């Protein structure tokens, strides 16, 4: 019976353990800066991934459309109702925008960018880490397209995450469901003045943890949570999700709530990368730019 580990093999095992620990501490420390060889590998693999993902998305999209066909009628009815309202809303919106800009001009604030103003760049998701522990997707825009580390990423439904490592032609998005990526998103409950912090993700329940809400605040199930625009990273009023349950935190000093993300994080095909116009002073920590 041959032994599992001879002396020589034990030495190999131990030295590879040492290398492992060194590599882990190296990559944990320089988290979001990627070295040149890393970028090269990421970009090269990204090109092949792009080739493979295109037909896969078409196929997935086809099955989705077949599935959607079953409730086309109800959807059409609903859309017709919404459309009747649309013309009125648009007129109202145009008027308010006009008045807003006029007032801003009067206040001599014409050149100050708003907290919610930003420029969007659309990117296609070309791969995703499959082990579901790392919540990372790769998109097909990189440094060459003006993407930088720390930029927020959204879809039409709401906040998705932020840009992590950036290659020349591809970049990684670490999702809000990634435990490592969350360094506190400053958030606000829509139509109120109630601020709080998004501080973690519960993978079992699929909810974000919305904490440090003032104890006196009137927080209810079903309220919408958006970004506040007060942190250095995210512009204001990007939808984050809906509150599903409210509780008091473990010390009884503040309230905390669970927020169901408004984006289906398991089904991402196209995302928008945001370059915000207003720069707020960096509050220290985080990635800052």
């Amino acid at each position, binding site marked *: 019976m041959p032994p599992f580990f001879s002396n020589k093999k034990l030495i190999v095992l131990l030295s590879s353990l040492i290398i492992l620990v060194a590599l882990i501490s190296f990559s944990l420390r320089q988290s979001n800066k990627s070295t040149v060889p890393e970028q090269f590998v990421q970009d090269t693999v990204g090109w092949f991934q792009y080739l*493979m*993902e295109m037909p*896969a998305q078409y196929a997935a999209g086809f099955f989705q459309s077949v599935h959607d066909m079953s409730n086309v009628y109800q959807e059409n009815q609903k859309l017709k109702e919404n459309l009747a309202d649309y013309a009125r809303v648009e007129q109202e919106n145009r008027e308010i925008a006009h008045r807003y800009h006029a007032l801003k001009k009067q206040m001599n604030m014409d050149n100050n960018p708003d907290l919610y103003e930003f420029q969007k760049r659309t990117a296609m998701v070309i791969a995703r880490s499959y*082990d579901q522990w790392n919540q990372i997707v790769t998109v097909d825009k990189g440094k060459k397209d003006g993407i930088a580390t720390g930029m927020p990423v959204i879809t039409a439904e709401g906040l998705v995450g932020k840009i992590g490592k950036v290659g020349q032609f591809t970049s990684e998005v670490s999702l809000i469901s990634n435990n490592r990526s969350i360094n506190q998103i400053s958030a606000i409950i829509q139509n109120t003045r109630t601020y709080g912090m998004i501080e973690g993700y519960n993978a079992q329940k699929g909810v974000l943890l919305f904490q440090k809400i003032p104890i006196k605040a009137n927080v209810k199930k079903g309220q919408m949570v958006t970004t506040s625009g007060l942190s250095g990273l995210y512009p204001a009023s990007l939808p984050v999700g809906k509150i599903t349950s409210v509780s008091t935190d473990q010390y009884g000093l503040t309230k905390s709530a669970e927020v169901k993300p408004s984006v289906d994080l398991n089904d991402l095909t196209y995302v928008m990368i945001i370059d915000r116009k207003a720069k707020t002073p960096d509050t220290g920590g985080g990635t800052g730019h």
Partner: protein
Amino acid sequence: MRQLKLFLFLFLLFLFQGTVMVHFSLNNMWGKVQMVPDFLLVACLMVSFFADMKTGLQYAILFGFLIDLVYTSVIGVYAFSLGLAVYLVYSLSKFFNMNAATVLMLSLIGVFLLQTEVYVIYSVIGLIRQPLSGFLQWRLPATLALNGAFTLIIYYPFRSFLRKMSEFEVQ
């Protein structure tokens, strides 16, 4: 030539795991169940069984590093875990005759080893906060089933390919 084909096949599996499989395994119809493809490990194990242990180990470490670079934020974890899993299962395989049943069993052991190693390392460095019960209940059974099915699908074609490759090298 066959070495090149082998490399291309493994590279395709590597891409396949992160693109096509994701549409399938991240579908909302699975609910809490996590079904993770470890096809590269299964293929590397079969290389070590039917062709050459050294080749299998080399590819495991090489593609482990690629997985680390492309799909994760921490370098080294998958390279180490894949290498160790392939080595341990290969050592175990010396006690068995190779047929479909034993290869299925050994690759399931390999998948179990890999998942456990990565789970332990990620938990220690604080990358994940999955409770052990969740790992055992929602992740392992589905993952083993998926990879077992994959093993049975590629067993006959891949084995004959590898046998021819190793014969070709001997001549």
